[in-house]
């Protein structure tokens, strides 16, 4: 895979940064000339991933969140959201729709939204070390 462009971003896990993070990623995505729907999909998926870091990764205060976004050939957009927080013991369970440890006001839909709004998602996590969510969105239809 040949990377044509790349950006990296790091910021504190403050909820006020959720809008900043999805805004920054969508600004970077603009050079691929996305449709309104594609842009909304990526924004929503990034918002979910960043929110997970803020709600779950650092229960004892704020830590850093790292985003990298890459543009590869054939309109492939790869965005990865990483934290160095508490990690997820059971990734499969965390990804089940409606599963949440976030309390009554959280719907438990974060990963379901990421899955349905992108073309692929990979989650790697080590308890005590952190979690990385990598999502791929293809902006150009296959021939």
């Amino acid at each position, binding site marked *: 895979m040949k990377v044509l462009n790349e950006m990296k971003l790091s910021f504190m896990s403050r909820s006020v940064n959720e809008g900043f993070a999805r805004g920054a990623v969508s600004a970077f995505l603009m050079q691929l000339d996305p449709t309104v729907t594609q842009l909304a999909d990526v924004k929503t998926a990034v918002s979910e991933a960043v*929110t997970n870091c803020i709600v779950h990764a650092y229960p004892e205060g704020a830590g850093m969140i790292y985003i990298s976004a890459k543009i590869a050939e054939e309109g492939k957009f790869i965005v990865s959201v990483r934290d160095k927080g508490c990690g997820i013991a059971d990734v499969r369970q965390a990804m089940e729709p409606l599963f949440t440890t976030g309390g*009554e006001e959280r*719907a438990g839909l974060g990963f379901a939204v990421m899955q349905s709004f992108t073309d692929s998602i990979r989650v790697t996590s080590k308890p005590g070390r952190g979690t990385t969510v990598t999502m791929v969105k293809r902006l150009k239809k296959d021939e």
Partner: protein
Amino acid sequence: MNVSFSSFQGELTAFLSGDIDHHGARDMRRRIDGEVERSHPSLLILDFSSVQFMDSSAIGLIMGRYRLMQLIGGYIRVSNVPAHLKRLIELSGIGALGVLEYKGKEKDKNESA
């Protein structure tokens, strides 16, 4: 101001605007719940017509208010969801609660099929 209210004969309408994410939902929740506790409406309408962006936090917001209205013996209705936000609403399955009201819902479904 991300929420404004209008009240008429026991119906409280909360007009939501801007982005509903985890950060914004917190403040919206506080203000809606405060208004519900003050006026005890029989029907709470969440009007989404001016919402620009939402993630699953908005679903949590709806579900939480659904529970609150059940608790005080009232109902909730979600209205005027803009077309670009419907996919998330449909994915969430909250339609099963019977709270959704949007015009031309079936038509939109056929169009996207």
